[in-house]
């Protein structure tokens, strides 16, 4: 049972909501922890013991650190052990994922990175220890965020004011957000995966200018709707269960600079690395070499978040290179040119980055770039033109939702005409639920 399945939408989620809301206030955390455990059990039964032991061990370390508050040396050893253990878990799950595919490493990444952040925060005294095992489980392994994140820090997870009692408004708006996230994934990301695979096959047979460009755009949309769809689902679920999780994407492809792109793309992950690594390493704020080294490191880690593969590392290096160039050479220019030109520049750079990101083999990157500029490739093949004609709806809809126009409209509506916004939300939910259900049949 995946989070994007009919079983989850129509059985697991309603049942979980009913059980959670019927539970007495003092048991709510325990119930939510049990629901998260049940989700893992139904989704990936073979990983259930591993994740259970993982969370148990993390909690054990947390308790041990708490009890060593007066022994700095022991506490430091425990922190080093916790970081080493979680780093090893990330590497192990990443390798496993490359060999088998499947649920991990995102769930393992989420649990491990959340734990690392937590241990560093409590060690530095920036956060309080979570003493309840149920609270700790919900914090590290809330089922909503196991699929793709967002990555939450102790400071970034907020309990809603009415989190302990049933709120019709919060549950309804949470469900609305969840449905919109699910729609992004089911209606756009899934068909885009299919289009991308067909374009990869078509380009492997005979690469064309149009095929190479289209695949790059399709892949970018696919990544965006996949990741932001899952994060919206997580945020919606969080709201349904009394938590406010942070946003993870804010229309990255319309950023005015590559640096800004990194702040809007998978922003909880970027924020995490920035907080725990960049800021710690950057002692001298004016040191150019340190800026370069730290930027390269952060960008590479942002790539590795998706898996330990050469193309992700190269993607990080590519992004880092542009951030460094912007910092030293383009900063003023980008600030002074018309906004639309700055956005066009960033759009082009980040779109090209997706060619690196999507490359199955590093060797295929250069031929793809060459083909994009017409070197030895025909303009369009019959197959690519067929793929376009068959998928016009998805391509146009995807392009429209890649920019923030609709989001701005919704925000405007919610502020200026709340009643109309509510009516629109009901209508939109009905339409999206119908389409989602039809597509999942």
């Amino acid at each position, binding site marked *: 049972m995946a989070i994007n399945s009919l079983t989850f939408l129509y059985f697991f*989620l309603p049942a979980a909501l009913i059980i959670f809301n019927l539970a007495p206030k003092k048991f709510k955390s325990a119930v939510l922890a049990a629901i998260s455990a049940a989700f893992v059990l139904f989704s990936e039964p073979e990983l259930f013991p591993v994740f259970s032991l993982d969370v148990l061990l993390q909690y054990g370390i947390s308790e041990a650190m708490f009890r060593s508050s007066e022994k700095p040396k022991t506490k430091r050893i425990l922190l080093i052990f916790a970081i080493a253990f979680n780093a090893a878990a990330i590497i192990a799950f990443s390798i496993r994922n490359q060999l088998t595919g499947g649920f991990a490493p995102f769930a393992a990444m989420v649990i491990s990175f959340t734990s690392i952040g937590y241990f560093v925060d409590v060690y530095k005294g920036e956060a309080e220890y979570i003493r309840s095992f149920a609270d700790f489980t919900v914090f590290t392994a809330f089922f909503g965020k196991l699929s793709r994140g967002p990555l939450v820090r102790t400071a970034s997870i907020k309990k809603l004011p009415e989190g302990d009692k049933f709120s019709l408004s919060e*549950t309804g708006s949470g469900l609305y957000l969840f449905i919109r996230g699910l729609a992004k994934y089911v209606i756009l990301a899934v068909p885009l995966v299919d289009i991308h695979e067909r374009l990869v096959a078509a380009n492997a047979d005979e690469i064309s200018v149009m095929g190479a460009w289209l695949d790059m755009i399709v892949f970018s949309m696919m990544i965006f709707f996949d990741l932001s769809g899952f994060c919206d689902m997580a945020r919606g679920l969080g709201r349904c269960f009394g938590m406010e999780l942070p946003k993870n994407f804010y229309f990255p492809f319309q950023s005015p600079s590559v640096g800004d792109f990194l702040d809007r793309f998978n922003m909880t992950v970027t924020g995490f690395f920035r907080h725990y690594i960049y800021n710690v390493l950057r002692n001298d704020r004016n040191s150019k070499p340190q800026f370069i080294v730290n930027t390269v490191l952060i960008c590479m880690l942002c790539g590795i978040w998706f898996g330990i593969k050469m193309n992700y590392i190269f993607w990080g290096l590519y992004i880092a290179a542009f951030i460094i160039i912007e910092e030293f050479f383009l900063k003023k220019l980008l600030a002074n040119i018309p906004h639309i030109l700055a956005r066009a520049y960033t759009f082009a750079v980040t779109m090209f980055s997706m060619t690196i990101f999507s490359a199955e083999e590093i060797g295929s990157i250069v031929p793809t770039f060459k083909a994009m500029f017409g070197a030895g490739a025909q303009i369009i093949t019959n197959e690519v033109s067929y793929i376009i004609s068959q998928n016009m709806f998805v391509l146009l809809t995807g392009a429209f939702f890649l920019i923030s126009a609709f989001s701005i409209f919704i925000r405007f509506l919610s502020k200026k005409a709340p009643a109309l916004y509510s009516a629109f939300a009901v209508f939109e939910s009905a339409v999206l639920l119908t389409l989602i259900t039809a597509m*999942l049949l």
Partner: protein
Amino acid sequence: MKKTAAFLIIAMVLFVSVFSAVNIFSAKEFLSGGAVFQNFETALSQNIPFRNELSELMDRIRYFSGVRHFGDIYIGSGGSLLRDIENPTSRTFSSAKNYILSFAEKYQTKPYFMLVPTSAVILQQEIENYANENIYNQRSMIARMYAEFEGKVRTTDIYQTLYDHRGEYIYYHTEDLPTSLGGYYIYGELCSRLGLTQNTMDSFSAAYAAHGFYGSLATDFFKAYASPDFITLYEYIGDSKKFVIERFNTNGTTQVSESVFIYNEKLFEDKTDMIFGGLSAVMEVTSAESTGERNSILIFGDESAKSWLPFLISNYERVTFIDLNAANKELLSGVNPAEYGQILFAYSTATFSSGIDFEKLDFVG
């Protein structure tokens, strides 16, 4: 968000949950041992309220967004539903070859063999560019099978003939079968191969028997985009030949008729069953008063015979048709191939690819 709106969104999800749950938990599979739990997602998708309407909605959206390929069916530009055939396996070829050759050896005969291409390949110009290149290459499939039989079985190639007439109504739009007109062209090729004199169209009286019907390929969704069909029945009037049709069914019953066609279309859900009243597992057509060629033929075939068999019977005194996939041991053991002057295996490429029970040839005789 307003509470009313929140309530309505929650209610929508709960509505589907409750209705699906009621459907699933009242299903026989659930009551008879809980098999439903083995694949809950499938069970749920099958029991979602308005399932068919949702599926159709999805197809319509895909159609409006430019999609013309639904599963194995393409919507042709001329309003035809063109079904691509399954890719036959090597076993399909070897099984056909081995059983037919051993059958031929057993009865010391050199049988005839014909594969009838489907509309998907003959009318592939109706499918948009690129997609039509991906249609399974039936021509090479036919050539491969014919090459396997070289020298041992007499093959009939009708591909080019049908292709030359592709602008005419030779295939039903919504049924994966040749029309009677297509059947006449097939009959022409068969005559020259079987050594018969082809009866001209003047020897048959044409009757338009069913108008504006949709065949088995046309689900409700496809009906909106496919052209309806009509049936023309060609009754032999060349001489005073009268036919008696005996249809032997697997349940032991026999139906006897003195008409090749049954003109009351309301009797048949499948309108092509107006021909012979539908093909049975074993069917024998004899001419009560023959003045033509006095010979006999044993035909192993499928539904595609509905198009050309009404013409071919005009050249024979006795025609026995066997559908190997439908016939059972009892029916087959009652047929003696040695009694026939000629033996013909004739299948559409679609039936051939999806598998024919050639092993049942061992029961014949």
